[in-house]
């Protein structure tokens, strides 16, 4: 008897090789605005993996929109290859074993999408089912996990892979302004691949995905968005300063909805796997849903070591939780991602 709720079998992650401290970035881009400089130092980020070219003739790295899109394409493929290999190898699997592929990105637009590129270059079968989730932002990992889990439930025993691929350095716009400073001080590059399958119950420490609960705040539609900036000839990401508070005040709604629908209380949740949106976002979530600094330890750590990795961040935290060895059979966890929309997505796990 196959249990329809799919299992998370493994997660693999990858980051580009070059890591920069906040001070490195300030120096490299010759940032002088004191407000922007203090944003970098107050970010609670020690370092981030980024893909940044050599300085040009003006002494500062510069890429036009075309170069940024090229960078997104090139590094998506490199990072995905490594993350997918790390997710599949421990299971003794290759990309040829994957029946459904879902790719998530918000850091570059391409057509055909990532799934088509990965099938061409990474050895997936040509009859692999595909979904590309594009432009949904930091919350998109759970927006993609939902259909991936549903596909698994409908196709027991078959393998689904979701890949969150964010080359955030491909959306950086550098000037001395506060708007770009917020973005440039926060995001890092990284990719996470997660393998799902519905299979018979087994005595192991892989969690099942039980349920999802979504929440969108239409009044905050414009709080996080891409704008075309003609002066730069690039897209630039705008992040309203009230975002952490808005997300915080609404966080209870989906969490309560998810737990009530499953007959659970907050105290029944042993593990919180929360998107590393930024220090203020994490604080807002902590005090609004009443969870402790310990509950967000992996979220804070991922932020400190990688910055905000966009859609794949929560999978980096999940991986750390699993490697920590504190999870026990019977435990329950809530995954929570937040982003543009403004959106809060949640999922319930049961080990």
């Amino acid at each position, binding site marked *: 008897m196959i249990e329809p709720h799919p299992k998370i079998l493994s997660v693999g992650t990858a980051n580009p090789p070059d890591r920069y401290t906040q001070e490195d970035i300030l120096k490299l881009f010759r940032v002088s605005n004191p407000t922007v400089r203090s944003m970098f130092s*107050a970010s609670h980020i020690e370092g981030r993996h980024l893909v940044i070219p050599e300085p040009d003739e003006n002494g500062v790295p510069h890429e036009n929109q075309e170069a940024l899109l090229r960078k997104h394409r090139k590094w998506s493929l490199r990072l995905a290859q490594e993350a997918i290999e790390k997710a599949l190898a421990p299971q003794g699997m290759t990309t040829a074993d994957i029946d459904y592929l879902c790719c998530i990105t918000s850091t570059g637009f391409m057509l055909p999408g990532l799934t088509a590129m990965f099938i061409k270059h990474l050895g997936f079968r040509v009859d692999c089912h595909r979904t590309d989730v594009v432009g949904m932002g930091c919350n998109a990992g759970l927006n993609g996990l939902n259909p991936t889990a549903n596909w698994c439930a409908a196709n027991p025993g078959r393998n689904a892979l979701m890949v969150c691929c964010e080359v955030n350095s491909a959306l950086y716009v550098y000037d001395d302004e506060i708007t770009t400073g917020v973005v440039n001080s926060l995001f890092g590059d990284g990719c996470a691949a997660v393998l799902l399958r519905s299979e018979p119950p087994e005595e192991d420490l892989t969690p099942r995905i039980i349920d999802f609960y979504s929440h969108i705040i239409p009044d905050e539609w414009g709080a996080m968005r891409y704008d075309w900036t003609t002066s730069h000839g690039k897209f630039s990401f705008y992040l309203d300063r009230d975002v952490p*508070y808005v997300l*915080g005040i609404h966080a209870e709604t989906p969490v309560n909805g998810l737990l009530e629908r499953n007959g659970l*209380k907050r105290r029944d949740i042993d593990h919180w796997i929360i998107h590393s949106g930024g*220090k203020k976002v994490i604080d807002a979530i902590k*005090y609004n849903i009443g969870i402790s600094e310990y509950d967000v330890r992996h979220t804070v750590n991922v932020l400190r070591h990688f910055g905000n990795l966009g859609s794949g961040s929560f999978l980096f935290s999940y991986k750390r939780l699993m490697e920590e060895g504190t999870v026990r059979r019977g435990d329950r966890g809530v995954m929570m991602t937040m982003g543009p929309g403004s959106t809060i997505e949640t999922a319930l796990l049961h080990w």
Partner: protein
Amino acid sequence: MNQTIQYEENGHIARITLVRSRINMEMVRELTAVCDHLEDNSKCKVVVLQGADGRFCEGIDFAEFKPDQPMDIHGFNKWEKISARIERLPKAIIAVLDGPAKGGGAQLALVADAVVATPNATIQFDEVHLGFLPGMATFRLAKIVGLGHAKRLIMQSPVVTATEAQQLGIVSSVSADVETALAETIDAFGPIHNVAVTLARRLLNESFSTEFENAIGNFLAAQHRAIHQTPFLETIKKHQDE
């Protein structure tokens, strides 16, 4: 049916009476069930924690330990979990001390938001003299009385009188008429807005172990939550109407 504690609700006041003089795992289970009720169903705003028969609580029950069995740390963990849960209840927590509060009983007094005592109440952390540790009183006590007094109370294990405990800041009021003192203390807590009380307590409890740079972010997150709740919205509405 509870065997180690008694629980009753009267209006907005819940009373937990420690019927059993010593803490055992059954008491931990019964306190857990009471906390479930207080979190899920109870409209009470105040939780009174009291003893019976002329004592508050005399500490852990050593009868549950067997010298020929492996020592088990998990029971201590369960005790800390229930203590922390009582400490974080979305209510005002008031301990009423009469007679000895010893060991785990003294620890329990420290999780309350206020402690009311009769003149013959005493507090003693006797664990170190018995060869073990006074639970997370090692974490809480110094914040209340300062490190010097905490070292003395925990390492020299004196029997602290109600008056001295009041001078140290553990006890908030001492009175032979403890019910009147309790009623006055409850009054002093005012309307008890659950969210404001819970957040203020959490920030205070975190104050000694959080750096200012982190604490300011925590405060702003908590304040944002508080000012979006009905009590504050009513406060500003009332102010406008006047």
